[in-house]
Each structure stands twice: as C-alpha cells, then as structure tokens.
C-alpha cells in the first residue's frame, strides 16, 4: 500500500493519503461485512466533512472583512506557523479543498430569528462602539447563547476593543494571535473529529473477520490523530 500515493517531498511517507487508506479500510470491511462496511462509510463521511466556521455578528460590523481575511490567513497559518504543533495528516486534510467551510451569519437582524451558533468554530465579530469598553446587549446575549466547540472574538475595525470578560479575550483583526487562535480552533475541531472517528470504529458491531481488520486499523492508530493505516 502507499506506493502510488507519495505526496510532497516534505511530507513523510507514513502520512500520505489518509483518505485513501480510510476508503480502502471501508472497502475491505465492506467485503467482509456489508452492514459494518456501511457504518464505516458513514463514519468516514462524518470525519471527512469540512470543519464549519461561523462568522457571526450584527449587520455592519465588518463580518465580510473578517471572512476575506480568514480565507487567506487560515490557510497560511495552517501551512506555516502551526506546522510544528499539528500532525501532518490533520494539516493535509484541512488544506484539502473541502477542509474548512466559512459561513457568515447575522445576529439581531430585524424580523428574522437569531441564527444558532453551533458550528465547530465561531468567530464573533464585535464593533468598536462610541463607549469603547461597552458591549452591545445583542452581542453579549449571542456570545452567551453560542454553543460552539470553540469561539474567538474579534474587532474588525482598528479601534478600541470592548471587554467580554476574562474568559474570552477580544482580538484585533490584524493581530497574528487572532489567526493563530482561529487556526488552533480549526485544528482542534479536526482532531476531535478524528478521535470520534476512532471511537466510532471501535464501537461498530462487525463479524469476526471484519472486526480483526478494524482492530488492526485501530492498533496502527492508537491516538486516532495520525490517521488509520491499513
């Protein structure tokens, strides 16, 4: 295995083609036990779906600016600064075309119910207000009600940053720490998915032969973060 899928020169041989390996594992299991094979396919679909990032805020606060910024910076950050902290496989799958899905949602819009902030990562855009330290009640309510895997607050304009309390620092858009925080959140979401994938594999009921294949795959990837080796 792995002969035809050698990637870039700087990527190690063992880290290439996790998606292919998973699909091969699913095909093998499918041949041995169709029901378990379907479950493996489902788990792969869930694990390989894009990481959802919601860019939320009230209208006019500069969400599209943040989006444009993130479209460029997240990729850069995943490629460079997080490289040493992030497993190559995670980075690879994040950099694939469907890796990260950015969506912009509006909070406190008239005549429309508030969106549910439940994506893997929520980037909340705050404005600089005349009273610099104050936070608009709608913003505060939305941040409190949000239930994402990870939330990052940012001020789109270059002005003063409002205070959301000690647990949630508010970044400036041009601060590299903001990009790092978002990239770390995205990578964390991806890691969580791979862990869930490994756990799902361990729990799939399968025939003894298919079970052996699954166990072998799990043994090769004990942490669930470095992919599944056939």
């Amino acid at each position: 295995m792995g002969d035809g899928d050698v990637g870039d020169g700087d990527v190690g041989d063992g880290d290439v083609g996790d998606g292919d390996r998973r699909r091969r594992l699913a095909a093998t299991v499918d041949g041995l036990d169709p029901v378990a094979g379907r479950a493996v396919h489902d788990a792969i679909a869930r694990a390989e779906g894009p990481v959802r990032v919601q860019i939320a805020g009230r209208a006019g606060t500069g969400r599209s600016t943040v989006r444009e910024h993130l479209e460029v910076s997240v990729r850069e950050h995943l490629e460079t600064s997080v490289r040493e902290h992030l497993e190559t496989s995670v980075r690879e799958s994040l950099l694939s075309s469907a890796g990260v899905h950015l969506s912009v949602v509006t909070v406190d819009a008239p005549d429309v119910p508030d969106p549910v902030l439940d994506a893997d990562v929520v980037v909340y855009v705050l404005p600089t207000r005349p009273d610099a330290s104050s936070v608009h009640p709608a913003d505060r309510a939305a941040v409190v009600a949000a239930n994402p895997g990870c939330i990052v607050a940012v001020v789109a304009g270059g002005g003063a940053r409002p205070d959301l309390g000690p647990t949630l620092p508010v970044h400036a858009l041009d601060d590299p720490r903001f990009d790092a925080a978002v990239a770390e959140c995205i990578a964390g979401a991806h890691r969580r998915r791979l862990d869930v994938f490994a756990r799902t594999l361990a729990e799939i009921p399968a025939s003894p032969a298919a079970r052996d294949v699954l166990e072998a795959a799990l043994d090769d990837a004990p942490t669930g973060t470095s992919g599944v080796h056939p």
Partner: protein
Amino acid sequence: MTGVDDVLRRWNPHGWRRLHTPPSATVRVVGVPGTGLGSLITELEEAGDDTSIGLRFVRDGDCAVVLLVTDVSAVLGRTEFGVLDGAARGAVVVVCALTAVDLRPGQQEQVIRDRDAELLHRHAPWFGRIDVLPVSAHAAAHARRLGGDVGRVLAVESGIVDLRAALCAAVTATQSARVVRAAVLARTRAMILDEIRSLRTVDDTVDPRTERLRLSSARVGAQRARSEVSHARTEILHDATVRLRAVASRMSESLDGGVIAPDDIPGLLAAELGDVAAAVADAAAQRWGPTSASGLDEPVGAPVPDPPERAGVFEDRFALVLGVSAGAGLGKLLSTSIGWLPVAPAFALSVACGGVAAWWLVRMRRQLAHRDRIRRWVSDEIAVFRAALDRWIRARAFDVDDRLGRAADERGRERAAALVDRIAEIDEEIRRRDGVRRARIAACERDLATLGPFGTGTFGAGTEPIGRVPRPSVDGFEVSTDRNG
C-alpha cells in the same frame, strides 16, 4: 366623542392621549446603552441658542418627538427597534441620530446611514421617511471648547447643529394639531391594516378542519365477536364429546365386570349424563353469560327413558327345548350309569334333570340377552344424548352470536350517530370561527373607513413634510444637510 375619536381611542390609546395633551417642547432621547447618549444630550443642550422654543431633553416619559440615538458601529437591529417601539408608542415625529461618525468616516458611514434609514422606514412606515442625521458628540465638544467663529463652523461640521435644528423643526411641527392628528391617524391606520392582515393570514380553523378530516375518514364499523363465539362453541362441543366417551367406557366396564346389576344401570346412566349436562351448562354459562336472552332455556341434553322390558321370544323357547333335551339326556345317562334302578325312578330322574337344565339354561340366556340389550340401550341413549347436547350447544351459540351481532350493530349505529353529531359540531365551530373572523375583519374595515378617505397603504400623508429638516443658516453660511452630497 366623534366616531373617529372613538376609533382612535380603541385602537391607539397612546395616540389618542397625544391628541388630547397640550404640545410641549420636550424631546425623549432613547438608545441602546453604550451609544454615547449622555454626551450627545449634553452637546445638544449646549448647542442651542434658540430659546424661543425651549427645547428640553429627557430620557423617559411620553413625548411627541423621539430622538433615536444609534451609532455608526453597526446597522440597526432588533434591539434598537425594541427600544424605539417601547418609546415611540405615542410619538408624532421620530428623528434618528447616528453618533460617533468619526469612528468610521466616509463611505462606511454613508452605507450604514442609508441602511438604517431603509430599515427604519420598513419597520415604522407611518412615521414617514425618518431622517438619519450623522453627528459627532466628540467633535461638537471640541468645537464648543474652541468657541468663536471657528468653533461655530466646526459645530456645523460635527452635525450637532443640524440635529438640533431638525429637533426644533419637529417640535414646532408637533405644535400644530393638524400634524399631530395626521400622524396619529396614520399610525392607527397602520395598526388596523396590520390587524386585518394578520386576521386574513392566520387561519384559526385549521385544527377543527384537520379534526373533521380525520373523523370523516375514520372507518365506521363494529367489530363483532363472532369468531370468539364459534371458537367457544367448538371447545364446548369437544369437551362434551370427551365427557360422553368417558361415560360410555365407564358404563361398559361396569356391565362387563358385573360389578353392577344391569337393572341399576339406567339410574347410574341418568346420573352420569346429568353430570355431563351440568358441566356443559356451566361451561356455556361461563363463556356466554348465565342465560340466553331469547328465552332459550330448554334443558340441557335429553331425559333418559326407561330401558326396554325383557320379552319372551323365540330364543326362550329354543333354549327351553334345548335345556329339556339336554337335561333328559343327562338324566338318562345318570340312570343308565347307576344301572340297578328300575324304570320308573330312572324316568323320573331324567325328567327332573331335564327340567332343572331347561330352567337354568333359559335363565342364563335371559340374563345374557338382558345385559346385551342394556349395553345397546346405553350406547343408543348416549348417542341420542350427544345429539341433543350438540343441538343445544349449537342453538345456544347461534343465540349468543345473534345477540352479539345485534349489540355490535347497535354500537356501530350509536358510534356513527355520535360521529355525525361531532362532525356537525365541528362544522358549526368552523362556521363560528369563520364568522368571527369575518366579523372582526369587517369591524376593522369599518373602523378604517371611519378614519377617513385615505387610500390603504399611504402612510404618513400628513407627516411627510415634518421629518424634512429646513436648511439651517449659521451666520450666513448656507449648510447642506447632505454631508456627502
């Protein structure tokens, strides 16, 4: 109280109160906390030198002029509209101030301003086109500190002069009863139109209609318990057959073993069959109730008749002859074997033996024949009894089936009647609700007609000019209200 007044009081009590309150120069300033309300009020109070009006600013209370303060950091949202709706229930004119324009100057401010104006018009069309006036409290404070001509020019630049002029114009406009009345009428008309729209769109007869559909598509039919009846009949028949077979075998054992004299058999049989009849009657009562409704209370099974009399027949005579001849022969054999007997005693012995043998043979034959007759009689009686029992059980089952069927039909009829009643009730309810809705819409339209001949949907026909700010002139400077124009 005129008709219009009554309609206004019912629909728009705040507006009605406004109509009957003397005009004042108070402006209510509202906004979401953090938009710089306090400093803006301070600057507004400091900016004015037009003492003739006596403009005052308050943070709450019911005022004819409302100043909505929003900031340039974001577009108006639900929160701001909630604040505005709470404050402007009895308002005649609303002016919107866009503060902190120095935070996002130029294009961004213009975009936010246009969007705010559009949202305001869509949210509260009865106020006419609400002016969104950019202002910078910060710049106004700076201008005030500078003072002099420069300060005055800077004050105009900061927008505070425009804003104060707009508020003065609004307050002046609300001094006119005609303007206030037109505004209140427009607001009330919008309220009535809203109500009519919601009455037209919200259909409260959906639930009863669904219920009616469900009921009318439900199957009307009684579930009969006939299969249970036939099942019980089979079981009782089987039970009776088993019991009768047991009786028959006991009877034949008694007869063959000679335990009981054949003459006692009829009594015993009657008792046994009586037991079987009682058991069957019990089983039937247990399954189908104590007695039949149709008066079918005939006895279970059949009475046991007396056994046939023994009759002297051909076989008796045949046995007699056979016994006489055999006995005579035996006597002859005895007398011959003794040998020394004279003739007369020997003959007498033969006759005696013949007589005894004939008597014994006839008796034995009669006993055998009687037993055989009794046996046949027993089996015949059991067969007859079985037939009678069978007929009784079938009759009883048919009777029960008939009764159940009639009861089920009755229940079905009752249910169908109840269903028809319920559907009629629902129809009545739907008609009632429709009627109520139509009546309410008609009442709304009547009220709308009472208010005046304005076409529907043209809000603020009388308020349109109020929001327009006259161009202020400061020391000869003609200032354009359109800062970006």
